[in-house]
């Protein structure tokens, strides 16, 4: 007994969604296509760095400095100029992509996952679990991260892993707090009650029903986190936990040279641009991904 169907049955294919479909959707829109391209290029640069760097990024070239010892501005020889030690900035930026991607995408990603887990768990279960988790979050927010860095720096050999761990440890807090609030209100919604009645497992409820509603907040915080973590890495490396010179990272390049930026702006501008581009690309991608996944925004006249 078909009752109310004003629509002509649509071709069922159009509704199918899989990875290929998502990819096509992403490439179809200029914004996400741009984001995707940038990300692919950066990943490519990180992976292929040894082959595409025009110079040895650690070579302190004699002709890379002026006679007074000042760095050289961008030129045909050094596309993005040289740094204070006469090294080719372009090559260093390319090599720095490795570190910065690991920090901005992986470490930040871990922080996002951690924050989301804590926030969602606390918000969903509430009660004493939620209380304890959120107070722990408060504690972490006030936690002296720099101090931890100094201790770690003195105890361990510096490595990217440690800096990534510190960043992951410190950066999940904001995410947790925001998601906590959102989850708490979601958990009281009726459609979650329905899931309990059906007998869905907690994991299923969290993963299939709560999580999709939090995707946007996660995207916002995750992409903003890219910039902050890449810069935070520089501070931590400065205190001795992270990658040590001469290994470049975008954050380090900025950090090392920021006092020179009035005299050698390219040393700050280009790595800064790279950071903005990375964060922006993920954001564009996230935005569009969300738009394509958000049922309310689909459709055309």
């Amino acid at each position, binding site marked *: 007994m078909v009752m109310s169907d004003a629509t002509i049955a649509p071709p069922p294919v159009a509704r199918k969604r899989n990875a290929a479909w998502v990819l096509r959707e992403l490439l179809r829109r200029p914004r996400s296509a741009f984001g995707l391209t940038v990300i692919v290029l950066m990943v490519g640069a990180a992976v292929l760095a040894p082959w595409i760097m025009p110079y040895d990024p650690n070579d302190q070239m004699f002709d890379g400095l002026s006679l007074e010892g000042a760095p050289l501005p961008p030129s045909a020889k050094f596309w993005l100029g040289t740094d204070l030690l006469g090294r080719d900035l372009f090559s260093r930026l390319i090599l720095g992509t490795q570190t910065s991607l690991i920090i901005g995408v992986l470490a930040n990603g871990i922080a996002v996952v951690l924050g989301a887990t804590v926030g969602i768990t606390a918000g969903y279960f509430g009660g004493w679990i939620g209380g304890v988790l959120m107070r722990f979050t408060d504690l972490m927010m006030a936690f002296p991260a720099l101090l931890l860095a100094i201790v770690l720096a003195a105890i361990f050999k510096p490595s990217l892993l440690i800096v990534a761990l510190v960043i992951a440890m410190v950066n999940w807090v904001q995410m947790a707090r925001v998601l906590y609030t959102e989850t708490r209100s979601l958990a009281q919604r009726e459609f979650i009650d329905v899931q309990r009645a059906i007998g869905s497992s907690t994991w299923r409820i969290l993963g299939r029903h709560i999580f999709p509603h939090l995707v946007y907040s996660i995207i916002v915080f995750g992409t903003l986190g890219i910039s902050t973590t890449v810069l935070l890495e520089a501070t931590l490396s400065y205190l001795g936990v992270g990658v040590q010179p001469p290994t470049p990272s975008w954050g380090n390049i900025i950090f090392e040279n920021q006092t020179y930026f009035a005299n050698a702006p390219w040393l700050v501008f280009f790595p800064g641009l790279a950071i903005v581009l990375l964060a922006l690309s993920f954001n564009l991608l996230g935005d569009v991904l969300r738009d394509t996944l958000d*049922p309310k925004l689909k459709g055309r006249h």
Partner: protein
Amino acid sequence: MTAEENSGRAAPRPVLTVSGLSVQVATPEGAKTVVEDLSFTLNHGETLCLAGESGSGKSMTALAIMGLLPYPMARISAGSIRLADGTELAGASERALRKVRAMRISMIFQEPMTSLNPVMTIGRQLSEVLLEHKVCTRAEAPGRALELLRDVQITEAEKRLGQYPHELSGGMRQRVMIAIALACSPEILIADEPTTALDVTVQAEVLELIRALQREHGTTVLMITHDMGVVAEMADRVIVLRNGRQEEAAPVRTLFAAPETPYARELLDAVPRIGEAPARPAPDRVRHTVDVEDLSVRFPMRGGILNRVTAQLHAVEGVDFRIAPGETLALVGESGCGKSTIGKALLSLVPWQGSIRIDGQQMAGLSPRALKPIRRNVQMVFQDPGASLDARMTVGKQVAEPLVVHGLASGSELQDRVEWLFRRVGLPPDHMDRFPHEFSGGQRQRICIARALALRPKAIVADESVSALDVSVQARVLDLLRELQEEEGLAYLFISHDMAVIDQVADRVAVMNLGQIVETGSRDQVLRDPQHSYTRRLLSAVPIPDPTHLRPPVLPREGPVGSPVRPLGEDVTRFAMQEIAPGHWVADRAA
């Protein structure tokens, strides 16, 4: 009725003309027309009812007139909407529409719960309209707002001005919406299902209110409803919609007396009339699918320094009932009396005390893991279909979910099963890939029913499950429920405020007040021979789907409204029940 007072009746004076209106919504497959070539005229002072099946485009029509179609999903694709002075509303600018809204046309939305700003006091939400349209000065505004609240007969109006929407009951919120809509004395009032969420006594009051206002101000009303009882009571003329098209338009008496189109006839035939339902076969009562004894649900109210529980809200207090396989127990009562809470307790969604046995298995004291297999046997269709569906998952997946969770089906078997469920509740299976917001209220309700049926439970709690459905669909859904009951011996706990529907489906009826059952017995005992004053009052408020028949006024409430909140340690006095006939129990009136 008051038709005679409206001089306009003699020589109809049109105030709004809709001609050739079409509304399209965007879907991934392209535009879909949901209202097609609709034309009608609203005359001064009359009440025009838009009736018709759910999803037929009634709300879309109303929103199109207000210029409030959801942007960018829906748009007017053709036609014109013209006011008496020639102002064209279709395609008018926001600025132009602003002048018309509230001043000349205003609207009461279908969902009073979400239509009020949660962070603004009632008083400000009211005076805001007045000030915006310069109906009065800033100084006069509070006074006018108070007057408006008094007009809609809200109790303790002064206090309400300073309260927030969440502090009011559903009925009160509906009245506030009406007050806002009427603030600038508009020429036209559009009321989209103004009473769906309300129980009959409140519904009667709200309808009376609209009538009274219309009497006083000569307002023209465009009323949208699926309840033919309400149509009969309110309308001067009726337009029956179906699939976005007009099926029939006629004065109310003509329509009810001699519907012309088959659909209108079907619609009217399907209208349940209290007292006309056929007798139901008595189920055998040797076993009980649901056996509830001394069920209490108390919500703790916290306070004090250590955040200890200082008081309790006795939502359900000492309730006993049993439902045999194949039997339907209807639960009626005022809004907030604890009906939904009983349903949730059956599924262990709220903490409860007492004993609940489902199919012989005791639920008390079981761990969530142990509960899972028992829960399978009892499913619930929640009161608010919109809220109980996940907006981010296709409805097909949601209906399939219980099967997946319990590992009952997968692959093509799952697909077939879901398709079968869709068909059974009257939805085309190709809608499976849609998201909830693409459905009308009634369609969503059916999706929820399909989901509850997926597990083939032994008992179903149907919480206001047909309230948003138009009568013909309602009739079919009720038929479906009955069929399933007969085939599989399902037990229903049927929660509803619609006495006519209850009359049709129930074997036994329990009437609740303040968390306790005040009267229970077989359907005939309770509905035909009500003993408790509360039951009588409820029945007196049921609208009669016959425009020629005038309903007597609603009986007044006896005594003050009680509160279910009690300080810790102080228990609610339980009513003593007396059996006045075999199986017909009535609470002691003195209690």
